[in-house]
């Protein structure tokens, strides 16, 4: 299979995908009821989309193409309301969060589609361990060359999104010490991490052909990179975010990305180069492990600073773009997160006082559904 043509799309348009947890209202463990919820939502009234994910305890929702913060929030709110209504009818809870706090991967059931069966056959138990929940944000690009330039320029900001969205401190019933433990699960996949440093769509086509000729990949879906091009949509897709605990946070993260993309495209503050990736894995680890308290090394200046401070500076730099994009409310929510802490901290705060993890999941469920 050769690489698809890069579809032209309107620059800086947005699409948000959220992978969500389906939990039992009895014990708040994951519950394999995706089919029931999807059937109930068949006649939903929105322009959004809802579909199955790799296990039967997950669903993925996707917004329509959006340009601004307010309509994006409105659509996500409508989506959340319709989803919650259907879930209540079925006695199912829906929660955000990058991991379920105490589910056991071995008990998960693969959703019966050819694609998911293929992944399960290929990756064995990793497929069930992939019961993690992320937010993907698509940003529209007019051509493949611009998409690849933006993809590499954005790599410097990947830790921002990891730390801000981090909501997966608990795995298999224990506090991992990471704010985002979800990305450790993703990292187990052989084609995860960063994309190869190629700058033009033609070059990328050559790389893709080499990979398909080895038989290792069949399509772009086989790459689990942190940011990957999506030629059929005409977008690049940021995949490092944990699913936040609220749709408001999800919308704010998407619009923060939109602002950074506009800043990069219009001001071109630096030119991406291969050496930028020297610190990529270190920065990524810091964000996963320590969240907003982590440190980040600037690949250009080689200076080290707190991630929280770097986000604050970035917010100041992109404020003008936020104003033009009518995304100031989103910027404000990101600023609030820097002060109040990310969702991982919120989840840990629920655990204080000896509350069981099921209570933490229930609180997360209430927060998402209300």
């Amino acid at each position: 299979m050769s690489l698809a043509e890069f579809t032209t799309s309107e620059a800086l348009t947005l699409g948000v995908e959220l992978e969500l947890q389906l939990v039992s209202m009895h014990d708040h463990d994951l519950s394999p009821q995706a089919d029931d919820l999807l059937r109930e939502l068949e006649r939903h009234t929105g322009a959004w989309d809802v579909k199955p994910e790799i296990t039967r305890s997950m669903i993925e929702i996707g917004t329509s193409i959006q340009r601004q913060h307010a309509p994006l929030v409105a659509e996500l709110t409508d989506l959340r309301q319709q989803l919650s209504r259907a879930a209540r009818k079925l006695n199912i809870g829906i929660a955000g969060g990058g991991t379920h706090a105490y589910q056991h991967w071995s008990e998960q059931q693969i959703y019966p589609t050819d694609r998911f069966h293929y992944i399960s056959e290929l990756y064995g138990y990793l497929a069930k361990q992939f019961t993690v929940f992320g937010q993907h944000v698509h940003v529209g690009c007019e051509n493949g060359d611009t998409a690849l330039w933006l993809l590499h320029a954005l790599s410097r900001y990947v830790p921002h999104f990891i730390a801000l969205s981090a909501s997966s401190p608990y795995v298999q019933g224990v506090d991992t010490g990471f704010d985002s433990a979800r990305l450790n699960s993703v990292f187990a996949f052989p084609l995860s991490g960063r994309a190869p440093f190629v700058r033009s769509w033609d070059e990328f086509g050559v790389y893709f052909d080499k990979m398909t000729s080895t038989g290792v990949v069949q399509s772009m879906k086989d790459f689990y990179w942190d940011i990957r091009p999506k030629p059929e949509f005409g977008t690049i897709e940021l995949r490092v975010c944990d699913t936040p605990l609220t749709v408001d946070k999800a919308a704010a993260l998407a619009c923060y990305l939109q602002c950074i993309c506009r800043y990069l495209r219009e001001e071109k503050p630096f030119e991406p180069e291969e050496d930028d990736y020297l610190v990529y894995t270190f920065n990524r680890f810091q964000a996963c492990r320590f969240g907003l308290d982590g440190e980040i090394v600037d690949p250009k200046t080689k200076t080290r600073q707190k991630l929280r401070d770097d986000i604050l500076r970035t917010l100041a730099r992109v404020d003008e773009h936020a104003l033009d994009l009518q995304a100031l409310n989103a910027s404000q929510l990101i600023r609030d997160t820097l002060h109040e802490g990310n969702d991982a901290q919120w989840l840990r705060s629920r655990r204080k006082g000896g509350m069981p993890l099921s209570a933490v999941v229930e609180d997360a469920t209430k927060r998402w559904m209300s």
Partner: protein
Amino acid sequence: MTALESWLSSSPGSAAPLWTLEGLRGADPVLGFALVMLAAVALAELLHRKLRAPRMLGHMITGALASPLALRLLDRTDLDPWKPIIDLAIGVLVFELGSRIRPRWLIDNPWLAFTCVLEGVLAGLCVAATLVSLGAPAPSAWLAGAVAMSTSPVITLVLVHEVRSRGQVTERLLIITAINTALAMLALKAWNVVAAAGSVNIGNELVPVITDAVVVIGGSFLLGIFAGWLLAKLNQPLRDAAAAPVLQIALVILAAMVAAQWKLSPLLALLIAGMAARSKMGHMLTVEPQLGSAGAVLTVLLFIALGMLFTLDGISTLWPWVIAILAARVVGKGVAVALLARLSALSWRQAAALTLTLQPMSSLAVLLAGNTFGWASQFPGVAGGVLQALLIATTLSHLVGPVLTKWSLQSLADECPQPAAKGS
């Protein structure tokens, strides 16, 4: 000869050695029960491994084989000393069932609430009407209808634990079972009232019966609420997870004894206690399946006892009524579930599965209304033929029902864990 050899060589009630059938029949009932339990566990495992049958089937068949129906190793009167323990086993399961119910779901999905009521009522009406049309006396037919409303909470809960099912059918099965069991108990109380109304002296008969019904239902409800509240209070200072099942079993015994003392329904009280405890304690209430290992032993004992109560006497003449009860019950429950399936957000396949899982009929409905295994003494004046047909129908539904339920949850509803793929 050692003391052990001497003990094994003969039984107190018989000169025959203990290892012979005659010797076993004369053995101490407690020793006999222990041996039957060993056999039950072995048979259950054998049936499970060879035929994938639910383990409870092995326990019940062992009970039936030991009963006067087959080998006559144990008499039904041998159950009398075990009655408090069997009651406790049922109480433990009913409390756990209550703790799994989330009443809020009935508000979020009113069509489900309607299903819970309609499937019980329609099953009862269908059974009663069919029996009347076959010539059964009306009061007896209505009694059979009241019993037919309920699904066995014991079989349902133990089977759900065994197959580890999760999903819409499982959740609905549990809530419907709890509700239709309570409805059946109400219907049986109402039957008592109506039967008394039929007597000549209304002033002397009807009023006390109505009062009794109100006191039993209201009192059981209040006792259940209090027991749930008490468990929450007692649990507060405890942080030891191992102590939780002990506390819960102690409370089940306490509530059951108070209920029996005040002539309330212990099982209705425990069902409410489970719901109240869940509502009050939320996540601090951790209920282990069957309240832990001790509860699991009691459950085996309970199923042996249920097996011992099996009867097929008179099936050669009563079979039309037996078939009528079973068929009308399937139709009643099936029609109600199907009518409201789509409105309550259930697929047709799930509706079929739910109908089949509701089939194990409950003798517990009668136990909820009374306090002994003596059905006939609980309901004087009921035609013997109808009662016997009802008992045979219960026996058959206990034999076939668990298999149907397991198959429905596994294959039709697809709600059980999938077997691990080779190499994965």
